C-alpha cells in the first residue's frame, strides 16, 4: 500500500498513484517540448517557441497543489505551465500547429495560449504581463470571497520589469490571494541574471513584507511543499506569497539562441539534477516504484505524443473567411 510522504504543507502528502502522476506530467511536458521542437524543425510549428525543458518540476509542483477554481497566468514559456495545470496536450499541440482545433483556434500560437476551462487565464508573451494579470485575477477572487488563489509564473529577468514592482506592492497593500512564482533559471535570455539585477531577487518581495520562500525548483516534491505553504498563505487571506524556484533551462531560450552564454560545465551539472532524474529517484526511494514502471510511463507518453501529432497534423487550418470579424 502506498504510504504518504512526510510533508509540512497541508495537502502535500501524496500516495504512490499521485506521485506517479506527478512524474507522468513532467514527462509529458518534456516529451511535448521535444515534439514541438521536432515539428518546428519540420516547419509545422511556426514563429517562435520557448521551451520549458528542464523546468518541469517547477510548474508541475506548483500546479499540483492548486484546487478547482484557482487561476494561473503563465508566460511565453508556457507549454509547461499549461500542461502542468491540465490543459489538454492535444489542444495545445494543435494550437502550435496553427489548427482550428487548437486551444485558441490557431489565433494565439505558442506564446499566448488561453484555456479558460482549465483556469489558465492566459500565457503572456510580454514579460511581466502574467504578474499584473494574476494580481487582478486575485482581486476578483478576494472581492468575491471565493477562497481561490491566482498564480503568476514568471522568470528571474522579469524581476526588473515595471509590472513586477507595481503589482507586488499593490497585491500586498490589498492583501490579495496571489502567489508569485519566480522561476529562476539563472538567465534572462542570453544574459546572466546577476549582470542585470541589483541584489537578490528575494530581497524585493521581502522589502515589501511579502511572504517569501526559495526552493530547489528541480525537485518536484520540494516544490510541492513550498508551493503548498505559499498557496496556503495566500489562500488564508494573509496576502500574497512569493516562491522562487531555482532551476535551469536545458534548451535554447527560444528557437534561435546562440547559447554561448552558459558557463562551462554548468549545463552538465544541472543535467545531473534533471527534474526527471530526481523524480525517478524520489519515486523509487520514497514509494519503491521500479524503474521499469517509469519506463512504461515514458513509453506511454511517447506514444501519446505521436498520436497527438498525427491527429494535429490531420486537423484543418482555420478558414480565414470565417475569421477576422470586427470586435463585437
Amino acid at each position: 500500500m502506498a504510504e504518504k510522504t512526510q510533508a509540512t504543507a497541508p495537502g502535500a502528502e501524496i500516495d504512490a498513484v499521485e506521485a506517479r502522476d506527478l512524474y507522468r506530467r513532467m514527462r509529458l511536458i518534456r516529451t511535448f517540448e521535444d515534439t514541438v521542437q521536432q515539428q518546428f524543425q519540420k516547419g509545422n510549428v511556426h514563429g517562435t517557441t520557448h521551451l520549458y525543458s528542464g523546468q518541469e518540476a517547477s510548474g508541475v509542483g506548483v500546479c499540483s497543489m492548486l484546487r478547482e477554481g484557482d487561476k494561473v497566468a503563465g508566460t511565453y514559456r508556457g507549454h509547461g505551465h499549461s500542461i502542468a495545470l491540465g490543459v489538454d496536450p492535444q489542444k495545445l499541440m494543435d494550437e502550435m500547429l496553427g489548427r482550428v482545433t487548437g486551444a485558441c483556434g490557431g489565433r494565439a500560437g505558442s506564446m499566448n495560449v488561453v484555456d479558460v476551462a482549465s483556469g489558465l487565464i492566459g500565457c503572456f508573451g510580454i514579460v511581466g504581463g502574467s504578474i499584473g494579470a494574476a494580481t487582478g485575477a486575485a482581486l476578483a477572487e478576494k472581492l468575491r470571497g471565493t477562497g481561490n488563489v491566482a498564480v503568476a509564473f514568471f522568470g528571474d529577468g522579469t524581476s526588473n520589469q515595471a509590472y513586477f514592482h507595481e503589482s507586488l506592492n499593490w497585491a500586498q497593500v490589498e492583501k490579495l490571494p496571489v502567489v508569485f512564482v519566480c522561476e529562476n533559471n539563472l538567465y534572462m535570455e542570453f544574459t546572466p541574471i546577476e549582470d542585470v539585477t541589483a541584489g537578490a531577487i528575494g530581497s524585493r518581495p521581502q522589502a515589501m513584507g511579502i511572504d517569501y520562500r526559495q526552493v530547489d525548483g528541480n525537485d518536484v516534491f520540494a516544490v510541492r511543499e513550498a508551493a503548498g505553504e505559499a498557496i496556503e498563505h495566500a489562500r488564508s487571506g494573509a496576502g500574497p506569497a512569493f516562491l522562487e524556484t531555482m532551476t535551469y533551462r536545458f534548451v535554447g531560450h527560444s528557437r534561435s539562441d546562440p547559447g554561448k552564454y552558459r558557463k562551462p560545465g554548468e549545463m552538465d551539472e544541472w543535467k545531473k539534477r534533471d527534474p526527471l532524474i530526481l523524480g525517478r529517484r524520489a519515486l523509487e526511494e520514497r514509494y519503491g516504484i521500479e524503474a521499469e514502471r517509469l519506463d512504461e510511463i515514458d513509453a506511454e507518453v511517447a506514444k501519446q505524443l505521436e498520436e497527438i501529432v498525427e491527429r494535429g497534423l490531420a486537423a484543418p487550418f482555420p478558414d480565414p473567411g470565417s475569421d477576422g470579424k470586427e470586435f463585437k
Partner: protein
Amino acid sequence: MAQANDQGTIEYRVAVREAIGDEMERDPSVVFFGEDVAIAGGVFAVTPGLHERFGERVIDTPISELAMSAGAFGAAVNGLRPIFEIMFADFLLLSMDSLVNQAAKYWYVSNEQGSCPLVVRSAMGAGGNFGAMHSQSPVPWLQGVPGLKVVAPATAGDAYALLRAAIRDDNPVAFLEHKRLYSVKDPVSPVDTLPLGEAAVVREGTDVTLVSISKGVRDCLRAADELAEKGVSAEVVDLRSLRPLDTETVLRSVAKTNRVVMVEEGPLIGGWAANLLGIVAAEGLHDLDDAWLIACPETPIPYSPTLEDAFLPNEGRIVGEVSSRLGLAAEIATGA
C-alpha cells in the same frame, strides 16, 4: 436613470458619477479604482460618495498606472467588471502595454473563450493651462488599437448613457472625459444606455457637415449658430466614439451637404480627423465637393494662455474657415 437637478439638467461630472453608481447598484461585479478616487472622491470631484456607498468595491490605489491597468485586465477576465481611472489621460501612456497587449486582444486571441469587460476612464483635453503633459487627448495613441473601444461623450446626458453602456460592454472601453466639460450642465439622458459606436446628427443642415467629438462638438454647435446668422446651414455630427467609427452617419451627411470639415483637438498627422476624412474620401469621393481639416499645430501643447488659446481649435476658427472657404454668406444663401 440619472437624477436631474431642479432645472432638469445634470452636471457632466455628476452624470459620470451616477452612471458608475447606477451600474454598481445593478451589477455586483462592477468595481471601481484609481488614485484618490475613493476617500477623496477624485481630483476632479467626479466620484465623491461612491466609496461610502459601495465600500471595498471602490478602491484607492498606489501611483501604479501599469499595475492598475493590468489588475483591471486580470479582474475583468476573471469575472469582474472593473472601471478604473487614469487621472489625466496623459498618464495612459504608462498603462498602454496592458490595455493594448492584454485587454484589447483577449477576446480575439482567446478565440472568444473569454471577454474582458473593463472601462478605463480618463480626463483629457487642453484649455485649462495645465501644460504639455496634463492636457493631451490620447486619441492618436488609442484609436488604432483593434479591440479597444474609444468613447468620448460631448454632453452630460450622453456621458451617462454611454458610460453605462461601456460598463456593460463585454470588451475594453476607453472612456474619455474632457476636463473642460466637467462643469457643463445638460438635460439628463432620457435613456439608460446608448449603443457604442453610433454617431449622432446633433444639428441638421444642408451646406456643410461639421464633424467632431467631445468638447469639439460643442464648439461646432456654437459655430453652426454663428454660421446660421451668416446664412450658412451647417449640419453637426457628434461621432461619440472613435472606435467603432460610425462612418455611415458621416457619409450620409456628406452625401447631403457635399462639404465636410473635421475638427480635432490634436495634431493633424496621426489624428482621427484626417483618418476619417481619408475613409470618407475612399468611400464617398463622388459626394465630396470640398473637405478640410481643423486641428492643432504639430507641437506639444503650450502653457501660456496666449499660446494655448491660439493653439486650440475653437468656434471662431471654425466659423472663419467655413465662411472664407464657402465664400460670402450671401452666395451660399442664394445657392450660388
